[in-house]
């Protein structure tokens, strides 16, 4: 039976469009923000680094949520959203890793050290690489969904660990200036504004990408059925 | 005891079962017939709950035991040990005396490791487990193969017992055998 492929809906276009539109504005704000007392202009990497890392966390949280949903109701749609979000999350976290490394070189003198935040972040990255390796190893859609759901749930444990690592282990890496566990903020208001704006832009992009990717996955599934 | 409602099953792109309906009550023996690759084994695995239908529903009341072909055992256990663990893990009601008695009746050495069993001996042991564990649904894949004359006689007796106690579904290529033991047959692979 010939079914027409669903098209991206208005929300998807809106998120993507708005995100892409505001991206230059975000860059502008980042460049216009005042230099840091210690780091000078180098601090501008932060406006990429921090939102990317947070969006990575958020994406994995969404994967976690949809994996839980899938446990209670095995609807392939949930699985597709979970996988899409994990994929976009990997991209964002990868961006955070790369920008972090670029930042580390001038500040700490090396690209990489075995330091708790960096280590836990790398591990987090590995968890979701494993998630996709597992998916690629299973052909049966039901089994694939189940297996990756389990990883999506168990693997999420690493997100709070990565986040808390700077507190639990005395770390070289910056501790939180915006502490999500206590709600304390220590940052110059202008920098904070720029940061929050970039966060908003990244979130819009994330939403757009995930919806788009899930749709692609739906097309693939439909093609498999045919 | 066992009910298939419009069951469809697909592997990859190929449909193997297309809308199978089946109802088996205790006291019935149903034979599955059909050419190679027509989905008999698949149907048995669906009935056991080891596969899930792509569409439709499989319902079952009571425990099922699937006798695959060839049967599978832990090869480092002896027959006696294997049955003892089976009784514990399947929470069977029978006891070890019964198990030992059955081993004797089936002509099997109780203390030889199973890796030294010949194919017919393995088949006999698999059949014996049905009597010991008393599942409500028997699912047998080509149960008549690998057995000698005496083994076949034991199988026929066993199926009489099964007819009294359980709902039995068996897959076979032996038409004479199917005719002799089955109350009904289901022919697969005719679209």
């Amino acid at each position, binding site marked *: 039976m010939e079914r027409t492929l669903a098209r991206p809906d208005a929300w998807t276009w809106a998120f993507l469009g708005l995100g892409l539109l505001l991206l230059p504005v975000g860059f502008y704000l980042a460049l216009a923000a005042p230099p840091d007392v210690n780091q000078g202009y180098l601090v501008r990497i932060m406006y990429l680094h921090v939102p990317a890392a947070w969006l990575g966390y958020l994406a994995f949280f969404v994967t976690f949520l949809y994996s839980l949903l899938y446990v209670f109701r095995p609807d392939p749609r949930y699985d597709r959203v979970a996988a899409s979000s994990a994929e976009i999350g990997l991209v964002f976290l990868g961006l955070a890793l790369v920008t972090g490394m670029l930042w580390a070189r001038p500040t700490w003198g090396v690209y990489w050290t075995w330091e708790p935040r960096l280590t836990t972040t790398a591990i987090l990255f590995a968890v979701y690489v494993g998630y996709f390796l597992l998916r690629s190893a299973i052909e049966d859609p039901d089994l694939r969904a189940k297996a990756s759901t389990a*990883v999506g749930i168990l693997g999420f444990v690493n997100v709070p660990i990565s986040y808390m690592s700077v507190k639990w282990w005395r770390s070289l890496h910056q501790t939180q200036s915006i502490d999500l566990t206590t709600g304390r903020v220590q940052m110059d208001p202008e920098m904070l504004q720029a940061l929050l704006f970039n966060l908003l832009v990244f979130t819009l992009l994330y939403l757009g990408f995930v919806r788009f990717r899930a749709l692609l996955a739906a097309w693939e599934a439909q093609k498999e059925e045919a | 005891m066992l009910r298939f409602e419009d069951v469809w099953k697909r592997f990859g792109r190929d449909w193997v079962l297309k809308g199978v309906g089946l109802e088996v009550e205790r006291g019935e023996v149903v034979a599955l017939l059909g050419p190679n690759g027509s989905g008999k084994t698949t149907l048995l695995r669906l009935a056991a709950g080891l596969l899930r239908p792509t569409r439709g529903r499989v319902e079952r009341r009571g425990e099922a035991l699937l006798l695959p072909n060839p049967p*599978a055992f832990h090869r480092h256990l002896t027959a006696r040990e294997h049955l003892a663990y089976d009784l514990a893990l399947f929470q069977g009601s029978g006891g070890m005396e019964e198990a030992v008695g059955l081993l004797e009746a089936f002509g099997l050495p109780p203390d030889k490791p199973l890796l030294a069993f010949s194919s017919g001996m393995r088949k006999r042991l698999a059949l014996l487990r049905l009597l010991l564990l008393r599942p409500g649904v028997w699912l047998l894949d080509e149960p008549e193969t690998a057995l000698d004359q005496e083994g076949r006689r034991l199988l026929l007796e066993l199926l009489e017992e099964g007819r009294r106690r359980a709902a039995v579904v068996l897959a076979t290529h032996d038409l004479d055998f199917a005719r002799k033991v089955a109350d009904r047959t289901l022919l697969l692979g005719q679209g």
Partner: protein
Amino acid sequence: MRRVLVLALRDLRLEVRGRAGLLSVFSFFLVMLFILALGLGPEEVLLREAAAGALWVGMAFAGSLLASRAFGLEVEDGTLDDLLLAPGSREWIYFGKLLFQMLLLLLLGLLGLLVAAGLFYMPLERFFPLLFTLFLGSLGYASVATFYAGLLARLRGRDVLLPLLLFSLVVPVVLASVRATEGLLVGLPLDEVLPWWQLLGVFDVVYVTVSALLFPWVMEG
């Protein structure tokens, strides 16, 4: 549940009969400690510093081999289907296999402690706290290992993925165990080791609960 115990003991017996898993894993573990000691030695200070790390790295690797034994025999002999047909919900299968893994890991750890005492000049005065750390660490490890081994057993020949999936989840557990062990070895007071124990405890509870809940679900259909 009696069945949990029966299953664990049966698996132990099978492994001992096969002489397979056990010997391989234990020899692997010992050789690994030996080679690490050889590579890091001969200075006593350095060895003593590396002891906790070496012990747990050894445990982690030997443990990943052990993990594939959790359902290895079932897959080799084709008996997994049969086990899944046993009546009742399937949590007990998870717990049986977990117990089996725990027993072996603890044995391995104990052996490791003794060997490390010899090779790495590791002091064993605080034996019971060390044992307690061993228990907490092993439980966190085994809970995930057993779960993944079960999940992958259905994929035949795919235990492949096991190390990767496993390590990414248990590295935090291993790190916390290393820290706790180090603390004990350098003679920190127990209440400075406590946070690590608490962290391990949290991991254990989360991993065991989630795995046990998900296990029947992933093994079905």
